[in-house]
């Protein structure tokens, strides 16, 4: 009996890596795609030396690792619409030292998501998912207890809220109630129309930013260049920052979270801008001024 268990373990040992992936996500099936995606936190040995970019068919850019073309986890050829994005992605691959840390390669991840579309969603579904965050927007929910925090939220969040209300000519408002403010349907409609003007790629990035900051208001202010990444992240973590100031910062929690959030938000914001603008537009604008 004991011997047969040992033998079974030996046999399973060879497929241990496979088991490791599956144990994290019991619902995952054995398709290549789900395995490739669930290995995001694992590291892999670096298998290339040189990273370069090349222009492929139809003007899109590819990333080459040594002489091999980079592919997505879904098995498609990795292509991006412009040079800036290709250089940024290539730099991410070039920055890896002995092991590939996929969890630190946010731009690559975003491109993969846009190319593979692993959840098979269309633009309208993404817009609806993004606009869900308007109802529970971070900057709309105010606290009424420690007077210093009340003051801080008012001073820091109100200007952004007013800015967005003027910029899009909408009504959002804030609330001390747990149910949040009543958002008029017209506001959602305006945002829906605005988001409709984004292409699929930039919408992927925008949704990513919104889910990171937990706020449509802050995300749009960031994309519209009203806030820098650092400011947007600070405003998103306002209550936490207040508590840190009062009780002290714990590096392995607070700083770790903040840098990760900054990196993710910056990657999302870059991704939106790089995939929505073509460099030719920029050059034309330069001639005008």
């Amino acid at each position, binding site marked *: 009996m004991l011997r047969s268990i040992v033998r079974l373990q030996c046999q399973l040992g060879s497929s241990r890596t496979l088991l490791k992936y599956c144990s994290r996500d019991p619902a995952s099936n054995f398709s290549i795609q789900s395995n490739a995606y669930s290995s995001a936190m694992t590291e892999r040995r670096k298998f290339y030396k040189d990273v370069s970019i090349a222009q492929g068919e139809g003007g899109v850019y590819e990333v080459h690792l040594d002489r091999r073309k980079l592919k997505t986890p879904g098995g498609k050829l990795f292509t991006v619409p412009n040079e800036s994005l290709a250089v*940024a992605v290539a730099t991410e691959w*070039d920055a890896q030292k002995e092991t590939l840390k996929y969890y630190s390669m946010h731009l690559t991840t975003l491109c993969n998501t846009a190319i593979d579309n692993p959840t098979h969603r269309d633009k309208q579904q993404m817009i609806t998912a993004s606009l869900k965050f308007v109802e529970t927007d971070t900057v709309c929910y105010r606290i009424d207890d420690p007077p210093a925090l009340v003051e801080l939220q008012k001073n820091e969040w109100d200007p952004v809220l007013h800015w967005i209300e003027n910029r899009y000519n909408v009504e959002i408002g804030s609330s001390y109630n747990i149910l949040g403010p009543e958002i008029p349907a017209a506001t959602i409609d305006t945002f829906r129309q605005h988001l409709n003007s984004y292409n699929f790629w930039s919408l992927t990035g925008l949704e990513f930013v919104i889910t990171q900051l937990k706020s449509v208001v802050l995300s749009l202010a960031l994309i519209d260049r009203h806030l820098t990444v650092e400011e947007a992240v600070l405003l998103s973590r306002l209550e936490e920052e207040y508590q840190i100031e009062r009780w002290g910062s714990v590096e392995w929690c607070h700083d770790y979270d903040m840098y990760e959030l900054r990196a993710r938000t*910056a990657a999302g914001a870059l991704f939106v801008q790089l995939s929505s603008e073509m460099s030719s537009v920029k050059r034309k604008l330069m001639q005008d001024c």
Partner: protein
Amino acid sequence: MSGLSPSLRVFRGLLKELREIHGTTYKNTLAYNYVIDQFRKNGVTGERQCRARQEALHLSQAYLCLLRSTREHLALHKLYHGKGDRGLAEMASLVGLRLPSQPGGKGWEE
């Protein structure tokens, strides 16, 4: 440092991050050439304000933030992230115990 224009400050920040990534050979990289090229095109020291330049500045600030935060995040990750479960012997030694040793093996190894 405070006397520098914002774009020049971002420019120097970007070069510093690229140096952190690639070491002394950073001047041979794609990113270095691209950054130099972009900043030259947009006129680093120019006084005139225009939309394209604002756009480029915002973009470069976001990129600098991405590179810097990723580096800081990875440094903390390396320092604090768990390395996985400890082995049985290591775990026992943590609380001052030792696994019993059996010179002849336990009898069921192959």
